[in-house]
């Protein structure tokens, strides 16, 4: 592109040079015509008559010489009219004007005039000013008659010609510059812009697809080389992406395995600790067992946080939207977390707006996780105070589904956060004060996870805090909402299920290969008044269901002989009601996509290890509700 201005400057210089050449040429031509007029016309007219007089022997006859000089004057007058040039003849000695075609006297400034010899005559020529008019002149002497002969012409036509030449040169140069610019633009478009656009397009495809691209450029210049490099780079990117994806899958697999392998013994520890606490213990033993359960619970929280964060950051955390009653969900959370608040001498208050008889569509799990996290934090940092949860939809809902904005504020009267730490509280592994970790525990991942989950839901979390007065975390999320006309019936069912509890003597088949987990799960189920029958692999489980008399099956996924998935498939193939026997999966795999696979094999619900009595109960209730709703229909 540097060549374009150089070329344009070159053309402009060439145009100026052409103008100067034309200028000199025109001036030279004018002087040539003027001097030729003088020598070949005027002086010849004079000389011809003198020669004639000499040949006729009349040179010294005054009447003839006077007559012939008069003829000269007459011819010059005719010539003046024909050529628009003026002629003047003066006496060389006295400078007396003998003849002139101009009315005014001719006073020439011949200083600086050029001298040339034309047709053996010496001629002076140049520019002068006569009577305030610029003129070109040429003069010479005719010695036989002692004459000085001058030819003049106005410079104005010459200046006009030069002006015309200047304009023409300018216009031609401008035209040439425009044409060359257009041509160069076209050439640049073909040779530079178009290839760059192809390369840019290829780069965009690489950014989106991470695939190897082929760029249709055959040229062998720098752009062609760049295209080849981009092609090669795209191949390497594709390869790196494939490797990264493979590595990510390996990481995911590793996390899944680790999740399973850690949760399984943790499940046993938690379960056994819970069972141990239900046995007669001394105070000291009870304290140990309680600490053991608490430690296991903290460890489970840490593991869950790490796994959640991994899922979010690897992009594996997907939004799983369902329609639910947010008001009910939040009230349940208040009930659930109220125990913790009470133990901290803190009052937990819940208020709502625009949520009555409204169902929202969002990811209930993530929303619940966010709220639990924020409320747990608020309770943790509030002693003898109040934690208030206020939820609202920005717009009132109608019977038709519409977009809405959910705002939930969790406000506490706790210790507050230092202003300079506010901006870092959502960073991973960060708490407002390192001493907090020591005093209050926690991994420092909770708020980071909560904010990322909120962002997954199309919202965010903002915080306002004042040290000593408390903090307010405000969660926003995009949801869909509608008025629930059936909510009363459904609510009645839920309420009935919750209030009425599970039917006693529910015959549960527990398929679990891990003896400790089996003991824990069986004990927990028995706490729910279930009659538990245990088998240690899937084949036995399927056979037992086939025998009949089982109301629900808790099926561990990973078992020897036959895993839970295959066993579930077999159950689903049984005839009649046996094939419809509810199967609840038990797994240490925390990832959602795995749960989808399990459900695809026929499982009705999944309970993630370590199992708790609440999780088991919730799952059983959910099954009961679904069954009841189905029966009502």
């Amino acid at each position, binding site marked *: 592109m540097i060549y374009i201005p150089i070329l344009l400057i070159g053309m402009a210089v060439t145009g100026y040079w052409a103008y100067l050449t034309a200028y000199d040429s025109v001036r030279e031509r004018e002087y040539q015509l003027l001097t030729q007029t003088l020598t070949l016309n005027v002086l010849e007219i004079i000389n011809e008559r003198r020669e*004639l007089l000499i040949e*006729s*022997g009349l040179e010294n*006859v005054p*009447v*003839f010489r006077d*007559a*012939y000089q*008069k*003829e000269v004057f007459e011819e010059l007058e005719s010539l003046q009219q024909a050529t628009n040039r003026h002629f003047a003849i003066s006496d060389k000695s006295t400078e007396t004007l003998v003849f002139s075609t101009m009315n005014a006297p001719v006073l020439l400034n011949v200083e600086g005039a050029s001298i040339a010899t034309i047709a053996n005559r010496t001629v002076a020529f140049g520019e002068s000013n006569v009577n305030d008019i610029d003129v070109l002149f040429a003069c010479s002497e005719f010695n036989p008659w002692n004459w000085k002969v001058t030819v003049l012409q106005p410079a104005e036509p010459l200046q006009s010609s030069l002006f015309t030449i200047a304009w023409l040169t300018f216009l031609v140069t401008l035209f040439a510059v425009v044409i060359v610019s257009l041509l160069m633009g076209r050439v640049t478009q073909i040779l530079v812009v178009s290839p760059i656009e192809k390369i840019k397009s290829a780069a965009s495809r690489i950014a989106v697809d991470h695939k190897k691209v082929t760029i249709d450029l055959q040229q062998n210049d720098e752009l062609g080389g760049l295209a080849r490099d981009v092609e090669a780079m795209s191949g390497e990117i594709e390869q790196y992406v494939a490797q990264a994806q493979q590595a990510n899958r390996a990481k995911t697999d590793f996390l899944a395995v680790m999740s399973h392998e850690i949760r399984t013994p943790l499940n046993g520890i938690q379960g056994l600790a819970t069972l141990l606490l239900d046995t007669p213990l001394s105070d000291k033993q009870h304290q140990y067992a309680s600490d053991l359960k608490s430690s296991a619970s903290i460890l489970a929280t840490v593991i869950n946080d790490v796994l959640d964060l991994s899922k979010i950051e690897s992009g594996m955390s997907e939004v799983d939207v369902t329609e639910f009653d947010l008001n009910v969900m939040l009230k349940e959370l208040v009930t659930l977390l109220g125990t913790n608040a009470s133990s901290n001498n803190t009052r937990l208050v819940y208020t709502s707006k625009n949520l009555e008889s409204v169902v929202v569509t969002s990811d209930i799990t993530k929303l619940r996780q966010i709220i639990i996290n924020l409320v747990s934090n608020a309770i943790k940092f509030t002693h003898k105070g109040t934690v208030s949860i206020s939820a609202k939809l920005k717009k009132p809902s109608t019977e038709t589904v519409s977009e809405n904005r959910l705002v939930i504020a969790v406000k506490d009267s706790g210790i507050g956060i230092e202003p300079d730490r506010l901006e870092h509280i959502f960073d991973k592994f960060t708490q407002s004060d390192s001493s907090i970790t020591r005093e209050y525990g926690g991994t420092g991942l909770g708020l980071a996870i909560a904010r990322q989950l909120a962002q997954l839901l199309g919202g965010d979390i903002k915080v306002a805090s004042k040290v000593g007065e408390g903090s307010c975390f405000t969660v926003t999320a995009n949801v869909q909402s509608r008025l629930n006309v059936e909510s009363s019936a459904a609510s009645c069912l839920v309420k009935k299920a919750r209030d009425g509890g599970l039917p006693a003597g529910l015959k549960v088949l527990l398929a679990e290969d891990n003896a400790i987990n089996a003991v824990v799960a069986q004990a927990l189920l028995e706490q729910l008044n279930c009659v538990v029958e245990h088998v240690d692999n899937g084949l036995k489980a399927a056979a037992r269901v086939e025998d009949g008399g089982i109301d629900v099956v808790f099926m561990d996924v990973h078992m020897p002989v036959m895993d839970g998935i295959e066993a579930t498939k077999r159950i689903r193939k049984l005839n009649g009601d046996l094939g419809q026997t509810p199967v609840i999966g038990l797994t240490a795999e925390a990832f959602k996509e795995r749960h989808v696979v399990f459900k695809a094999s026929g499982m009705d619900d999944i309970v993630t290890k370590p199992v708790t009595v609440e999780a088991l109960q919730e799952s059983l209730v959910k099954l009961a509700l679904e069954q009841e709703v189905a029966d009502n229909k």
Partner: protein
Amino acid sequence: MARIIVCTLFAVVAATLSTGLALAKEVYNVVIVETLPVPIVTESRIEFEKELVRIMPDYDIKVTTYDAEGSELRATEILAELAKQPAPDLIVSVATLATRALNGSNHFLDVPKLFMAVSSPVEEGIVPAIGASSKRNITGESHVLDAKVKLDMLEGVLKASNPTTPLTIGLIHSTYPSSSSLVNQLLALNGTYKHINLVAINTPYLEGDEGLVAMTGNIVEKLQQRKSELDGYWLSSGPLAEANGLVAKVKERTGLFPLFAESISSVKEGALIGVVSEPVSIGKSAARKAKLILENSSAKDMPVGKMDTYTVAVNVSTAIKLQLPIPSNYLKLAKQHVYQ
């Protein structure tokens, strides 16, 4: 043997005769009738003969010349005598009177005829206009310029000296037909030129040398009588212009100079300017027409025209004396005919 010799001799004689016949040139008989032996007539006729022989080398041109002695009647008699003889291939008349007689003769309607040195063929009734053909099987050329051209030239000369009043110029002439005709043409244009005022001065035409002398005397006498009103005179073509010593006598008796003459000799003698067809040009031009006629072109179809070659002559001594500078363009045209 003798028979052989006789036969051989016979063959030789026959061959010689046949070769001689074969080498003999075709003969053309050309008759010339000249009006009178004045220089322009005689010189034109001589030049005609020379040129015709030169341009027709393959023919034997036999020329017979008759002198009409300045008389139309004599010319008519000559033609009557010629009519009794075998018809010539071409009859040429020189000058006006011989031409008038030839054109008026009915003896030679079938013989092609050519005239030269005739000033006014239209006025002579040969053709209705210059450029037309004659039904009487005659063609030729006028050797004088249009009157207007001649007046233009004289006006040009006078204009150079820018006289305050027109110059009064006496148009001297005889009643010789061509002279009268030319003068009439000039007089018809009188008054159209700023510097020229023409006055006719004539004398009756008298035949023969004695008549020429008498005409000269008459003219000199008339000019002397009117010299006070004249600035010069115009010597028109015709027999009077060929009179010996006319210019000198007029100058001696009146002090007048001829300002325009239609003969070189008059310019030599002192005429300011003259425009004439020289006898050489007249004779050569006529010879070229004669060749066409002898080569079977019809004189009936050849239009009568004017000559295309004229000679300008000036006399600078007269110009100096009269203080009438000759314009440079006339001086250039005169070339070899600048006289002092």
